[in-house]
């Protein structure tokens, strides 16, 4: 499975020959990622007749290029209108949108594009050469560790996203409970469904995402004439100099892009942990090691770079277990697996020996996709940033109409639009009362996974809860979780003590 002895230069030249597939896939992917309701998986499913008719190599290049580009596209509406195109872009709203409000929409977009393309490129490059080692990471993470990783992720989000940690935790655990709606996997007994058959499969994520972010934001947006704050005139005069300024800002933070993209890569390799978790963990880590953590959430460039680089680092990571072990790391990888199986391709270590053009070609295609993305999307940032100066009188109805109908697309249930409306109102209440919607959303996303891994662990131990504390890695993660909760509380207590001591 090593790259040694394989003519890498020949492989690069061979993959570059597929530019005619990669470029349109990248453009389509950016578009799909930017539209809430559409994502890589459902777009590939929609285009299955086309993909199945292609040669397996061409089909795979098409799918991975589209997949990578959706990660980038999702950040565009997250920054400009506070509506993430995909779950993985939810963390980009935390600092991307405040930058847009300050009139730095163009710089924010450029930062996001550079972090996404460079981060994704580096992660794909690293994967290409470290594949034998990376593919083993999945072996060390079992159901116990997964439960703790998810709880840790949620706690981190609660700690960072909300002003008040208790409010963040309530929103996160409320989300986890909402994520538990639906039938259980063993007995198919309905739980918390309010009697609606449409909820037996669980809460659909796209309507929840659209409701919590798009609808609630639209209901708040009407309080302002436009997204860019009064007096913030930069986007009105968007010029190329701002594009260069964005590139310069990204260049000054190159190390930040590197390490957060690698963090995304490692998280991406773990099956089930996707872009949403990676981007929030990267955001938290970035803030944790920052010398200016208080600037996060106010439109801080590093707060945007971290989730975007990690979000794109996940892409190559998700493909690693698929190619190396035949285990899909996420929803899109599962669809890719189906397409490859249709063509009779057996995934696993032998693939790298028998068909290196396909096995390594996937990662080389990603490299080219990111290069193409960089040069196609960067010049567009100047024009895209103008969205922030469109009067909300026009913008709000358009956002509501297209996202509301977008929530119908994945399952084709009218009921899903009702769910969007309900979560829109819930999101509005959350925003008005400082319960961060991101914590609620991540809870809903993780709810079913936590139950799945918890059940697996408990069944292995025949119901003994002690299994949750039986692994070294798991225990380290538990300790980190406890510290995440305790450190902010103790820090606040200490500050109060210092202040009261000084005033006495």
């Amino acid at each position, binding site marked *: 499975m090593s790259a040694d002895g394989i003519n890498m230069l020949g492989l690069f030249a061979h993959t570059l020959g597929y530019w005619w597939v990669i470029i349109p896939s990248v453009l389509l992917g950016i578009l799909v990622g930017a539209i809430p309701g559409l994502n890589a998986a459902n777009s590939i499913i*929609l285009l299955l007749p086309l993909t199945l008719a292609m040669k397996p190599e061409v089909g795979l290049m098409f799918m991975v290029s589209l997949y990578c580009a959706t990660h980038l596209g999702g950040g565009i509406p997250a920054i400009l209108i506070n509506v993430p195109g995909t779950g993985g872009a939810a963390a980009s709203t935390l600092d991307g949108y405040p930058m847009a409000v300050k009139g730095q929409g163009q710089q924010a977009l450029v930062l996001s594009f550079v972090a996404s393309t460079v981060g994704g490129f580096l992660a794909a490059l690293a994967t290409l050469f470290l594949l034998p080692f990376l593919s083993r990471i999945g072996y060390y993470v079992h159901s116990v560790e997964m439960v703790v990783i998810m709880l840790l992720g949620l706690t981190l989000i609660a700690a960072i996203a909300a002003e008040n940690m*208790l*409010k963040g*935790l*309530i*929103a996160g*655990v*409320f989300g*986890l*409970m*909402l994520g*538990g*709606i639906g039938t*259980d996997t*063993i*007995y198919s*007994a*309905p*739980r*918390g*469904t309010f009697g609606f058959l449409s909820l037996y499969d669980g809460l659909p994520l796209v309507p929840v995402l659209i409701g919590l972010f798009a*609808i609630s934001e*639209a*209901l708040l947006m*009407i*309080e302002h004439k436009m997204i860019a704050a009064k007096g913030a005139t930069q986007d009105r005069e968007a010029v190329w100099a701002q594009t260069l300024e964005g590139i310069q800002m990204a260049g000054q933070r190159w190390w930040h892009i590197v390490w957060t993209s690698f963090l995304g890569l490692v998280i991406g390799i773990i099956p089930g942990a996707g872009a949403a978790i990676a981007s929030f963990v990267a955001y938290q880590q970035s803030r944790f090691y920052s010398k200016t953590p208080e600037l996060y959430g106010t439109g801080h460039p590093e707060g945007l770079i971290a989730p975007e680089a990690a979000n794109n680092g996940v892409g190559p990571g998700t493909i690693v277990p698929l190619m190396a072990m035949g285990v899909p790391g996420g929803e899109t990888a599962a669809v890719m697996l189906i397409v490859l199986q249709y063509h009779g391709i057996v995934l696993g270590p032998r693939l790298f020996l028998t068909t290196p053009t396909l096995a390594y070609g996937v990662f080389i295609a990603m490299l080219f996709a990111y290069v193409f993305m960089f040069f196609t999307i960067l010049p567009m940032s100047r024009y895209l940033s103008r969205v922030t100066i469109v009067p*909300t*009188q*026009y913008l*709000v*109805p*358009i956002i*509501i*109409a*297209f996202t*509301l*109908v977008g929530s*119908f*697309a994945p399952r*084709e249930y*009218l009921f899903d*639009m*009702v769910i969007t*409306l309900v979560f*829109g*109102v*819930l999101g509005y*209440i*959350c925003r*008005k*009362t*400082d*319960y961060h919607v991101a914590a609620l959303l991540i809870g809903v996303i993780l709810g079913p996974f*936590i*139950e799945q891994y*918890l*059940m697996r662990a*408990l*069944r292995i131990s025949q*119901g003994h809860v002690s299994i949750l504390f039986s692994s070294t890695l798991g225990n380290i993660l538990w300790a980190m979780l406890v510290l995440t909760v305790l450190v902010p509380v103790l820090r606040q207590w200490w500050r109060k003590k210092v202040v009261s001591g000084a005033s006495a």
Partner: protein
Amino acid sequence: MNDRNNDNGKRPAGADLVIPLLAAGFAVYYMSTIWNLPWEAKANGLVLGSVLLFLVALFFVLTARSLLRGAISLSLSRLFEPRQFQTQRWSLVVLMIGFIAVIPYLGFTLTIFLFLVLAMLALGVRSVRKLIGVALVSALCGYLMFIVALDTPFPHGPLEVLLGRLF
């Protein structure tokens, strides 16, 4: 952000209780639906429900303490401020309900068009040219992109059927 100290110097915190109340209500309802199920089907819900109820109880205790200290009031004003946008906000919610109700009959394009006209009207756009122009262009772009190009399974109405026969 809202004025947080507008109720005789007390911070209006009544709205902060809405989410915990909803969360606690849902937790109790959820646990009632799993109570008689085998342990595999209820373990996760019981653990999460208990944690959620504990967190909500803690929040209520802290709120009660602040209330007794006179630092907060139970006013819900934060939810409804600034007041001048309430009519527009409620109009949008009503229009969304209407959108969901009529889309199976009118189809994607016509519903988008009508919603955009009415929503822009509710938000204060009075120029007929702009109302019709923006709604028409948006609905048409939506039709071309989602129905014609991507063949997305959005509801089809009389317009989609007619255009489908013509082209």
